[in-house]
């Protein structure tokens, strides 16, 4: 059998066209996937840009829940939840926790009384190297159910450069188009901004699944319920702009603070994909144990500064549900985290962090 002789170089146009077309097709597909050719797709960048536009640029800070304070402590599990989740955090025993109390909005200098919402984020560091991260708010429902509505709400509440306040007409139009915001707005209307983080209950809002030792899933929402729910304004005056941090420091000086971690199991038919709808109060609730907060540190040099409380960072034994907010939170928190860590690191292109003298 003979080797075919090497053929001379071909110069035909279609051969070049095949090469060019292959490159072009791959490039176009890549560009489409990366979103260059899909400007209308809702990306994490667009959400975080909108947050940043509403609050102004504050280099080094979170693009939402920018004003906050670090806490540390531990979780003492009662073991009650271990029949529903194989996560070792629910076995009887102690797990260290790094947390953060905060108020929403991208302005780290905002007055505490400007919003009734307070938040608690937690990172449980499990003995096996896995982690459970969660961010919870004190409202029993979230205003919107989807990332698209979250984005529209940000656009509608953008401050008017002339007045410094959102345009009431645009806000009203948004609410009219989004009746699902009703439950949250009713809560916000009747809630006086608390002058203490300590007396609040914090709700995970998004649904998850617990996975038990047999692999069975149980739809769940969790919350942290304070030991001392009364006496929010015993310590400090609600009108001071930084009342929350001072109150927390004062109370911790008197000893650790406690919350009970409650897991609410869904009944068949309860929505797992809609954070605007609370589950009925008669659901089966498991008291999973006690969260104990011992120490507080400012966020500028505290251990919570460099944590991204991405709610999809979960240990074996907990998985995300079909709640569409979860993926959006994961993507947007990563983008916000990249911006603020890049600003601290002085990465080229990132805004420089103003160093305090």
């Amino acid at each position, binding site marked *: 059998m003979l080797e075919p002789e090497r053929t001379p170089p*071909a110069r035909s146009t279609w051969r070049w066209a095949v*090469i060019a077309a292959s490159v072009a097709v791959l490039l176009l597909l890549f560009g489409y996937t990366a979103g260059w050719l899909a400007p209308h797709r809702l990306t994490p960048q667009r959400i975080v840009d909108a947050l940043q536009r509403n609050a102004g640029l504050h280099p080094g800070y979170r693009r939402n829940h920018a004003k906050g304070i670090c806490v540390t402590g531990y979780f003492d599990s009662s073991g009650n939840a271990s029949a529903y989740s194989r996560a070792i955090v629910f076995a009887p025993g102690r797990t260290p926790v790094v947390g953060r109390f905060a108020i929403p909005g991208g302005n780290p200098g905002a007055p505490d009384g400007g919003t009734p919402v307070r938040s608690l984020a937690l990172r449980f560091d499990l003995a096996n190297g896995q982690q459970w991260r969660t961010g919870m708010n004190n409202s029993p429902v979230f205003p919107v159910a989807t990332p698209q509505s979250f984005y529209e709400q940000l656009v509608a509440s953008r401050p008017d450069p002339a007045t410094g306040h959102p345009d009431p007409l645009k806000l009203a139009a948004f609410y009219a188009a989004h009746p699902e915001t009703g439950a949250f707005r009713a809560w916000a209307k009747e809630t006086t901004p608390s002058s203490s983080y300590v007396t609040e209950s914090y709700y995970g809002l998004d649904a998850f699944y617990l996975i038990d030792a047999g692999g069975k899933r149980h739809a769940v929402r969790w919350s942290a319920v304070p030991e001392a729910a009364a006496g929010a304004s015993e310590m400090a005056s609600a009108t001071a702009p930084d009342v929350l941090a001072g109150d927390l420091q004062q109370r911790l000086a008197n000893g650790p603070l406690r919350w009970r971690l409650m897991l609410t199991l869904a009944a068949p038919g309860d929505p797992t994909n809609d954070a605007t709808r609370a589950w009925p109060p008669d659901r089966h609730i498991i008291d999973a144990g006690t969260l104990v907060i011992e120490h507080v540190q400012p966020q500028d040099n505290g251990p919570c500064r460099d944590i991204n409380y991405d709610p999809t960072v979960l240990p074996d034994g907990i998985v995300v549900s079909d709640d*569409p907010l979860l993926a959006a939170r994961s993507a947007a928190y990563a983008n916000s985290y990249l911006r603020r860590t890049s600003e601290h*690191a002085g990465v080229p292109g990132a805004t420089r962090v103003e160093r305090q003298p």
Partner: protein
Amino acid sequence: MSRPDSFHPLARLLHWLMALAILAMLFVGVGMVATVSTRHQWLLAIHRPLGVTILLLALLRLGVRLRWRPPPLPSDMPTIMQWLAISSHWLLYALMIGMPLIGWAMLSAGGFPVMLGRSWHLPPILPANSALYAWLRLAHGVLAYLLFFTILGHMAAALYHGLIRRDGVLSSMTFHRLPRRRSPAPSTNTAPEAGDIGSPSQTDPPDSPGYGTPPL
């Protein structure tokens, strides 16, 4: 068995398997950071374990590459082209090993557990340090684009060899049915295959047109 005019079969298998996997990773990567839909979650869940698989395959492939020398480039290829081919291949090796290592290192520096499945995770390879995270995350993104454009050039070059030069370079990496020569006429390289027992060429009809034979 490996023939002198083509890559070792294991090298070829790894090449095409990894070409698919790496392209998939690039698309998964840019896709997941550009969406807030639930795709973000499952793309990320594919990204980490597939990336670590690529790291393991790349190390195996490096071993194969060092153990079995690749066929020489055609001697009539201009020096600059030869140099480009060789340096871009080493760049590709560096990136297919570097990218997953950076991904792993960056998650370690960010303080994230490197979950590969629901219950599997890798140990951190760097201490938690947010500045390192920011730099590595930048590197992961920039080098991903470098990798993509290098692959585009590499693919264009391979097609140029196969369609325009038709010098046997493309078929040295494909699972061709006819043996190809890579050099114009070095006598050492001309007809060793005829007696190669088990070679697929034996079952080919002698006139079967191989890839690179002028179709016109």
